[in-house]
């Protein structure tokens, strides 16, 4: 369509090239002299752990970040981008991981706001419908965004980028928010774009996807380019090795665990949203026994945060019996009282929710430890006890930090997460509710955290893990349920919980054998 198909991409000229691209933030090198070539008709993967420099690199290519050194070449000629508008005018488009959409505006209005130029609104709407239909990305231009699913919202972003007819499209972790089936649909669109002669830079850390979809992969580690390879010729293990630098410790499969009595019971939990366009929790019921890990899968924004708030007691429910911890009705009790009953909680957001970023670790140990234990006596803080928790957590969970008691914000994501999870596990909780335990965490830390969750369950605790990472849940959970629009599906035993079945549930389908429950719900 654009230019004749070359036999292999490498024989044509690169569409975009970075030469010695470097970005420095103070003493920190986010990108260290990166050379990368991206050809037309190529899906190029950018692989790396969190903090490897992927985001900085693509932001530089999209004109959001100015490089400290090195240069960008577009079709062979050096360019300097003053901003994203200039990148777009060259034909560079980007779909961000976090959408920038206005909830109260329609699809067409959102797209119109994101377009440069003076096209009349009616023309935009018409063209939007055309592009959407053409690429098999069904979208109703007149619907308001708040009514749409996350997958549909992503479609808006993709269509918005496509309406500018980009030669080069950057996608930042596009499948992170999709069900497996939605991801498959996206891949069809991406193959189509590739066939049209466009180049795609595809950021991901999901190795299977990259192997399946991408022609080339560039791997970043610690801001440096480690390798460029053909992912189809690599194994997932060899790619992971290049990403992480060392072998990743395998999580030991859960040993024979005996389940005991129910320790966390939720009976018909209903909760109205606390904010506009929030998700209502509807008729959520489940029972979690000691020695068991229950996984809750689902696309973000389907009520997981609301469920966490209700379980933790950050939001109270009227009927005490709705939530029962270790046999005691506690729906009306505060988070502190629930902690005293032996419950522990780890929220999704480490900084600002799980910890006060500008406070020391010992103070953050006190944040959740004051309820029980010896940290507070007659209203006075036992500073030695808080430091003891820090030391013990550091030792047990290998928390790396510059000094004994630094501020929470100075730790890396993985180390802070180990602290936040470790702080709760060391209290020996009867029930642990954890949201996104390894979100944005390096592979080494993720393995330690998952192992700790398994060990905690083996020791007799009931563990509830909410995660968007299906692989994680399949690895550690005994049963997996799916949240969709505030409903929770029946939990599937691990042996039964295939990616396909879970994917269908994540998209709102009801499995046949569960139809009765779904209708009842």
């Amino acid at each position, binding site marked *: 369509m654009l230019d004749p198909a070359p036999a292999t991409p490498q024989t044509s000229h690169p569409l975009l090239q970075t030469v010695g691209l470097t970005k420095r*933030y103070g003493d920190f090198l986010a990108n260290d002299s990166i050379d990368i070539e991206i050809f037309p008709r190529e899906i190029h993967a950018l692989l790396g752990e969190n903090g490897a420099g992927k985001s900085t690199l693509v932001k530089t290519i999209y004109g959001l970040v100015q490089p400290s050194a090195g240069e960008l070449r577009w079709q062979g000629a050096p360019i300097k981008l003053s901003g994203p508008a200039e990148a777009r005018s060259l034909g560079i488009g980007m779909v961000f991981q976090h959408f920038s959409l206005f909830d109260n505006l329609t699809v067409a209005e959102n797209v119109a706001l994101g377009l440069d130029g003076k096209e009349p609104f009616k023309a935009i709407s018409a063209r939007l419908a055309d592009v959407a239909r053409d690429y098999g990305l069904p979208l109703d231009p007149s619907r308001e965004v708040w009514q749409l699913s996350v997958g549909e919202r992503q479609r808006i972003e993709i269509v918005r980028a496509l309406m500018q007819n980009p030669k080069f499209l950057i996608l930042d972790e596009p499948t992170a928010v999709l069900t497996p089936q939605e991801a498959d649909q996206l891949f069809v669109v991406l193959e189509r774009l590739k066939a049209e002669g466009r180049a795609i830079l595809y950021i991901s850390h999901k190795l299977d996807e990259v192997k399946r979809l991408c022609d080339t992969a560039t791997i970043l580690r610690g801001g440096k380019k480690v390798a460029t390879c053909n992912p189809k010729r690599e194994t997932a293990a060899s790619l992971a090795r290049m990403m992480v630098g060392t072998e990743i410790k395998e999580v030991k499969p859960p040993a024979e665990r005996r389940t005991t009595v129910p320790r966390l019971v939720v009976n018909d939990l209903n909760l109205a949203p606390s904010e506009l366009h929030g998700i209502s929790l509807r008729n959520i019921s489940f029972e979690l026994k000691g020695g068991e890990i229950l996984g809750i899968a689902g696309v973000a924004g389907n009520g997981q945060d609301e469920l966490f708030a209700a379980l933790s007691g950050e939001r109270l429910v009227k009927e005490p019996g709705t939530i029962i911890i270790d046999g005691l009705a506690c729906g009306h009790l505060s*988070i502190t009282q629930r902690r005293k009953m032996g419950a522990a909680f780890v929220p999704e957001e480490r900084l600002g*929710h*799980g910890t006060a970023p500008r406070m020391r670790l010992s103070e953050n140990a006190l*944040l959740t430890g004051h309820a029980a234990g010896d940290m507070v006596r007659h209203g006075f*803080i036992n500073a030695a006890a808080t430091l003891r928790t820090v030391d013990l957590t550091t030792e047990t969970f290998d928390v790396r930090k510059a000094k004994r008691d630094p501020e929470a914000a100075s730790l890396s994501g993985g180390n802070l997460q180990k602290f936040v999870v470790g702080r709760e596990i060391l209290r020996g909780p009867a029930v642990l509710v954890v949201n996104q335990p390894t979100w944005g965490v390096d592979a080494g830390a993720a393995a330690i955290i998952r192992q700790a969750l398994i060990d905690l369950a083996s020791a007799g605790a009931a563990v509830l893990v909410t995660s968007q990472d299906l692989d994680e849940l399949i690895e550690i959970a005994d049963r997996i349920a799916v949240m969709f629009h505030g409903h929770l599906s029946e939990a599937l035993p691990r042996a039964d919980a295939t990616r396909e079945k879970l994917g269908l549930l994540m998209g709102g389908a009801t499995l046949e054998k569960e139809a009765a429950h779904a209708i009842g719900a």
Partner: protein
Amino acid sequence: MQLVLEKRAERSRTIALVSPLIAIGLTLVTMSVLFAVLGKNPITALGVYFIAPLTDGYSLQEIAVKATPLVMIAIGLSLCYLANAWNIGAEGQFLIGAVAGSWIAVKTQGTEAGHWVLPAMLVAGAAAGALYALIPALCRVKFGASEILTSLMLVYVADLLLDYLVRGPWRDPAGFNFPTTAEFDPVATVPVLIEGGRLHLGSIIALVVVAAAFVLLDRTIKGFEIRVVGVAPRAARFGGFNANQLILLTFAVSGALAGLAGIIEVAGPIGHLQPGISPGYGFTAIIVAFLGRLNPVGILIAGLFLALTFIGGEQAQITMKIPLDVTKVFQGILLFYVLACDSLILYRFKLVSAAPQVQRAAR
């Protein structure tokens, strides 16, 4: 070469201590320029402002007397500000405390009432200040009204109430129609510490307040709650701390301290209730709180320093004919510099060298 402001990984403790000193230094430089513009010799003027008051006993006592209400009020305000509750109305709480305490003094005037009068006055002053501060706090918690506006507006209500009382019902019949109550009885007066001096028991109370605040913030779970709610509200909720409860608590405590300062001022150095009992203590205390880094010990030092500017300002007015308003200008400039220097706690200046390989420096 380019100068960039760069975020620090961790807040700098050194700068946190040094920043007020930098601010004071910059203020002195600015003031020198101002004095020069006014046609005064900056060195002499600064000497009169900051050195002369430290050289004689009377002025030293006077500094302590002026610092007493400033420190007491600022300690209370610092609790509010740490908890992200913005009490701007300490001046009003100060006046209400003075009025409530004076009510007992006026009612017992000339009676046989014994030594219970002064303690009762102090309790009444503190209680009235606390209740008066709870008005904006409750409006914030119940209706979401901005406590900044409501607390500030209540200052004028208190001011006019005091004015009405001393011109009307409580006016001293033998006072030649001056708007003032009669001199309080000895049992209704805060005792002086040195015979014939001005230093009074209130200064000891202020020191106790400083010590108590230090223990509260540094050693107790309640103090921890106050600090967490201010810096990370979501984490505080996760910790199980109730932000609204803490707003009410910190407002009540700061109102009580302001009210206590008010009645001590009236029953101490002034000796009777009259309009203009405060040269803006409630507002100057805001500067004291920030200059003192919202830290009790820092506030004590900052309170003494600002008291010095009041005394120095009076002397400069007398000896050099420098308008008293220059003192307020000085305090305003100081607050400005303190807030500006605070950015250095979380940020640092860095020279980015334009080395050859750098084509575009960070913006």
